[in-house]
């Protein structure tokens, strides 16, 4: 009976952990996407100071949540997000606006990818 109890407890704990993680990660990525959208809107309006500040917020949030993200998401993709956010943070030039918008769109896409990659789907299994 001990073997069965241990086995079922581990199975349950792992399943619960995965479900909780997917909910937590979705919420976290929603925060990042909201910040990216705000930066994107500011950049479109030519307000580079705000877009840079929002990019800075994204970097800080990534740094605060790094331990959790690195433990659960491929570190390569987190590094890509950091690079994109850093490029958006230093961009304060009107001539780089199109590049900035592209970077922010790509950053949003990366956050979306992280969010959806954790969604359970049979397509992803096979």
């Amino acid at each position, binding site marked *: 009976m001990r*073997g*069965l109890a*241990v*086995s*079922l407890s*581990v*199975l349950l704990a*792992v399943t619960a*952990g*995965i479900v909780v*993680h997917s909910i937590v990660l979705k919420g976290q990525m929603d925060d990042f996407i909201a910040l990216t959208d705000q930066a994107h809107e500011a950049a479109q309006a030519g307000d580079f100071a705000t877009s840079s500040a929002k990019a800075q917020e994204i970097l800080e949030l990534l740094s605060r949540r790094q331990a959790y993200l*690195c*433990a*659960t*998401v*491929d*570190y*390569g993709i987190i590094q890509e997000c950091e690079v994109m956010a850093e490029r958006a943070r230093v961009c304060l030039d009107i001539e780089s606006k199109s590049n900035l918008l592209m970077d922010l769109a790509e950053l949003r896409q990366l956050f979306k990818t992280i969010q959806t990659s954790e969604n359970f789907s049979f397509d992803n299994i096979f």
Partner: protein
Amino acid sequence: MSGDVMGIVFVRTIMIYMFLMFALRIMGKRQLADLQPMELVVTLLISDLAVIAIEDNYRPFAYSVIPILLLISLELLVAHLSMKSVRLRSLFTGHPVYVIKNGVLQQNNMRRLRFTMEDLMEELRQRQISSLLQVQDAIMETNGKLSVFLKPQNKPVTAADLNLEPPPSALPVPIILDGKVLKENLPGTGLDMEWIAERLRERNIPGVKAAFFMTVDPYGGVFVLPKEGKP
């Protein structure tokens, strides 16, 4: 490799080592040679997953820990179900198959097992059996080992065959190991430190620290090996 990465590898290796120790402890004590085929596969899978966790720093630790935990729980679950149901046990681990039955070679079974005559002869030679004619039964066990039973006329003589009654054998209990008394072994023997010191003195060994190994059997037999000086 930068210092940071080395540090990560260092910590990850320690974590994986501790985790595997815990995981294999849960799986139970079985010799590698005694593993069922499925248990062997699970063990190999776990070792592979552990290597990935140590080598690939970009991959989250959880990606290796989750499958290892799942494999162990499934293994435990299957083991439990196998214990409860004969049918499931037969399904999960198969059943022993006769290769030789009552001295007759079971060729169909050998074909099914893909077990050649060379394999059979090799197994028999390893057991110092030179001829098939000596074998009464040979059974391929579920863990891939061959159990061989000789015909009565080829079995070694035992005390029972000669109507002898040898005294019951008893295992000697280790009392001293590498200059230290194994106090946990003393209660069952009724011995004390004074008795040990006396036995050592009789053998010109000045004290416990000078003894490398000492055993006492239930009939009072004492074996002492003195410690050798460092070269």
